[in-house]
């Protein structure tokens, strides 16, 4: 599958962006355009998932996938936290922040995986979009709790005071996060509208999808490489963890997915979700909840290393594991 991956235009555009940034080209995608594409992609996958669930109905697989995803979201950061402290030599605050990123998910990695798996006749179930939405936030809570548990009081004092007022603020922010609302909302609209209601808007959301994904991954390639080139914060140890963590988490996710009875495509997607690291929802939450944590570390690891790794190798790896187990 790795060869099909590397000759797919979607991935080639990612590589083009990565390459352009490496030779320090001035190519840039305007930020509002990138945001527009990400809104489009989330609306489209939400809709498609909802329409699919509308025709298959709720199944027991859906329930087990939802539970498995939520449990993974809460627990994966724990292992990550201790690896980051021991191998990564990070402090408790930075470890908690990074762990939250790796427990949460990356929407673009998910979308790319769905495209690549579908081409391999391993199309995952439509409800996995809903599972992704469920997995966005639990890791934030675990990450914060771990950081707090392992931090000496004075260091967080001002923050604790601020966080008291903030407390519910962060919970609110996490639950009403724009991408969660958009994904779940579009999912619900897809379910209400069904195949027939989806028909008139299908041209935009289904037909244009792959092309938009190409342009979006072009931008992600630029951003990932620029992060990597600019960072001064990522040590060899951290760089290794940024590859090790997705392999560990992704394998756990794929195995769990197989165990709870998902088909290979969906199990692979659960692996991809576990392996992927957030770079939108979690960084914003961390900036608010633990401003002392260093964005230079968590963004460079998740965007600069883990994202490209998953896009180019991870997806194929978890597909292979799922096929082997399934």
């Amino acid at each position, binding site marked *: 599958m790795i060869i099909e991956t590397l000759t797919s235009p979607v991935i080639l555009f990612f590589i083009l962006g990565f390459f352009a940034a490496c030779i320090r080209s001035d190519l*840039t995608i305007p930020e509002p355009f990138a945001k527009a594409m990400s809104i489009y992609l989330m609306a489209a996958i939400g809709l498609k998932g909802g329409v699919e669930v509308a025709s298959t109905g709720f199944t027991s697989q859906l329930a087990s996938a939802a539970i498995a995803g939520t449990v993974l979201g809460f627990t994966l950061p724990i292992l990550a936290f201790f690896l980051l402290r021991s191998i990564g030599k990070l402090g408790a605050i930075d470890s908690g922040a990074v762990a939250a990123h790796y427990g949460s998910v990356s929407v673009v990695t998910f979308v790319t995986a769905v495209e690549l798996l579908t081409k391999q006749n391993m199309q995952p179930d439509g409800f996995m979009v809903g599972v992704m939405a469920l997995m966005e936030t639990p890791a934030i809570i675990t990450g914060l709790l771990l950081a707090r548990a392992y931090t000496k009081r004075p260091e967080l004092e*001002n923050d604790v005071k601020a966080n008291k007022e903030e407390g519910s603020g962060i919970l609110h922010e996490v639950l009403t996060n724009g991408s969660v609302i958009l994904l779940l909302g579009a999912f619900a609209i897809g379910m209400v509208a069904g195949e027939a209601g989806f028909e008139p808007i299908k041209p935009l959301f289904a037909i244009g999808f792959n092309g938009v994904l190409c342009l979006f991954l072009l931008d992600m390639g630029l951003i990932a490489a620029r992060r990597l080139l600019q*960072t*001064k*914060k990522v040590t060899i140890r951290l760089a290794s963890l940024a590859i090790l963590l997705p392999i560990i988490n992704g394998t756990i996710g794929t195995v769990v997915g197989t165990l709870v009875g998902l088909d290979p495509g969906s199990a692979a997607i659960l692996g991809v979700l576990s392996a992927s690291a957030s770079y939108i929802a979690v960084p*914003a939450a961390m900036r608010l909840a633990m401003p002392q944590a260093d964005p230079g570390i968590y963004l460079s690891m998740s965007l600069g290393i883990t994202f490209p790794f998953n896009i180019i190798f991870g997806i194929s790896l978890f597909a292979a594991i799922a096929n082997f187990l399934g």
Partner: protein
Amino acid sequence: MVATVQRKRIEILVDTPLVPRIIRLVKEVDISGWSVIKIASGGGRDGRWDHDEVTGAASKSIILMIASEQKADQFADKVAPLLESHGLLITIGNVAVVRGDRF
């Protein structure tokens, strides 16, 4: 000649996700208003960054406020504890405000 009054021009450079937290402090000292300006790109001790990124977590903004000296001081006192942890840069300058009695 129109009348002017002396006021403070406060600029706070802050990570965009933290803007709402600062605004809450602004409201506590009852300053008449504020304006937010986006930073397009910049650089500091960590090297350079650009704003053209999907993740808004790294973007920066300036909060601009015109206020009386007294309120500016109150605000500075309130915001000081967050200074280090939130990486704020706060500057206060003098300006004459044309018919600015309400600020």
